[in-house]
């Protein structure tokens, strides 16, 4: 399998180099693989995910996507976020005054995919995630599990090649956590790449690779 993304010798600091969250980190992910990153709170898991999602800039090092270097903040990075990368946030990040349907369609609004196709995909995702009956409900009125399922539907609706999930089961009960686990695994089995940051490695067992982030360094376990 060829590598989809690669981080080479990456350092990241939030206090102008006084202390580093990530230090000389190297990371690569193959196309069609599913991996988890574990680590204690504050170990830099979300920072790593933000860097991989091109939401934040590297202090030093290189970000390589399908063999080509990409700079966060540039046009190329924006295009990747539109088409290739799907995000699932820990706090769901749904727009409260919008319905689930509208929240999902927002992701499709910026992608180049035909809006009819996006709507079709949305219907099947809503069905898969048991959200059809809640489709017109404003997200402010949903439970945590429903919100997270909606956030997953939003991330997957444009069928991104890479899905980055930040603690997708962090606030959920076991039933909901298992549903999400199932959906993400199925998505990876269709040839997409999924990276999950989690506290709970038991939920996401049976993945291709597992990493642990400690002291700014990433180790495969």
């Amino acid at each position, binding site marked *: 399998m060829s590598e989809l993304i690669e981080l080479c010798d990456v350092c990241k600091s939030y206090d102008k180099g006084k202390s580093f969250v990530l230090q000389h980190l190297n990371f690569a992910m193959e196309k069609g693989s599913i991996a988890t990153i574990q680590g204690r709170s504050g170990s830099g898991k*979300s920072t790593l995910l*933000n860097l991989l*999602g091109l*939401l*934040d800039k590297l202090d030093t090092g290189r970000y390589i996507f399908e063999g080509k270097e990409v700079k966060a903040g540039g046009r190329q990075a*924006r*295009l*990747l*976020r*539109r*088409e290739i990368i799907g*995000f699932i*946030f820990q*706090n769901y*990040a*749904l*727009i*409260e*005054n*919008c319905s689930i349907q*509208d929240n999902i*369609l*927002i*992701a499709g*609004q*910026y*992608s180049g995919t035909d*809006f*009819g196709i996006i*709507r079709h995909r949305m219907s099947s995702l809503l069905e898969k995630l048991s959200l059809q009956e809640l489709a017109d409900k404003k997200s402010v009125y949903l439970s945590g599990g429903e919100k997270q399922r909606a956030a997953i539907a939003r991330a997957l609706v444009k069928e991104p090649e890479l899905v980055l999930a930040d603690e997708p089961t962090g606030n959920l009960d076991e039933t909901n956590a298992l549903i999400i686990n199932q959906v993400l695994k199925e998505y990876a089995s269709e040839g997409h790449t999924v990276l999950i940051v989690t506290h709970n490695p038991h939920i996401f067992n049976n993945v291709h690779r597992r990493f642990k982030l400690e002291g700014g360094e990433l180790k495969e376990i």
Partner: protein
Amino acid sequence: MRKLLFGLKQLWLGITAQRIRFALTSIGLCLGAFLFSSGLILSDSWYRTQMEEAERIPSNTMLVSGQNTRIDGIRLLQNLEGTDYSIFMQEEYSRTLLRTQLPGAKEFSVKANLIGLTGESNKGITKSIHSPDYYPAEMEIVRGRGILNADIQKGAFVAVIDELTERVLFEDHDALGKTVTLYSDTMRPGQEDLNRPLSLKIVGIAKNSYYADEQPYLLRSRYNSSNNNQILLQLCLYVPEPLLDEDLCRKVYAFTFDSEESYREAKRLISDINFQYRYFGVYSLQSRETLIAQTEMITAPVRRTADLVILMVLVLSGLTIMSILFFSTKDRLTEIAVRKTFGASTAEITLQLVSEAGLLGMLCSAAAFGAAFVLSMALQNYIREQFDIYYHVRFRLHYLLSTMLVGLTLASLSSLIPAFYAARLQVVKTMRLE
């Protein structure tokens, strides 16, 4: 198309996301647009009404008027080469129609306007009748007959009234053949023929004049004299010219010329006559151009002042909206961060927020236009009564479009800086704070 509809839906959701912000911004926009629209409608309607009046004079016609002026000058003009026809008319000569004693021992009199008419021409009589709106108009006799030359020559006691006067004086009855009696207002010793009541037989009913649609207002209005005992109704009685009291009337002569050269020659002649008879009183000359220039001169300072006030109000309103939007974008940080995560550029987010404000601006300004239009209509009578400023408000598409354009511009410009500021947020920082 579906994407566009979804985009519009997003705009609307963005506008209404926060009720207090929505209400405050709408109030600011409505106020700005309302003031703009009211100012525009009032000043433009006034200007247009004045201009319409001026433009009703044909370009080759001049109006010569004067009190205590000698007739010789007029005769000279009438005989001038190139004069097609000249018209003599007497303007707003009123006589009392009714005197009555009302409770409180006050005597009230109701007056009517008399409009005399006659046509003189050196190329044959031109059939023409004068409406109470001052200038010659081809008025239609709807029943009976008009005033004939024979009536004019012998000063027959006949009158033509318009439909509205008929309704006011005779309600639903046919006025033809009925008599109206006019009472003299001024008692002049030795001129008993002018002092005695004048009974006139109604021989014709004319179609309502140019201002007929304004007449209901005029009927309601009261022109009170200093001793508060007079009501002047603008009723129109057309009578043969000899019956009018010339001493009291301002005479207006309208001359129409067949060429620009004759027109200029007449102007020169009036200037000469005015110089020659300067001790007796001069003729004032009005033409389409002088009336238009006069209208411009009167209305321009008012319009300029109104423009300045409106501009200041718009700037203030824009600053208020801007400060509201600055606060309101803070409510939408998650939404903006999500959009950026899904690849929206700073320009797209800015456009989204500015479009929301623009859409709200257009909707508010359309509503504000409606309110301003209704208010301008309602104020029409009040302003005329209180300030003697006559204007007629009509719906014009450009009022609505200008108001909407101003609403759009005001909202877009006010939202530009807050939108740009919000669109530049960093997703990572925002999501961490959220």
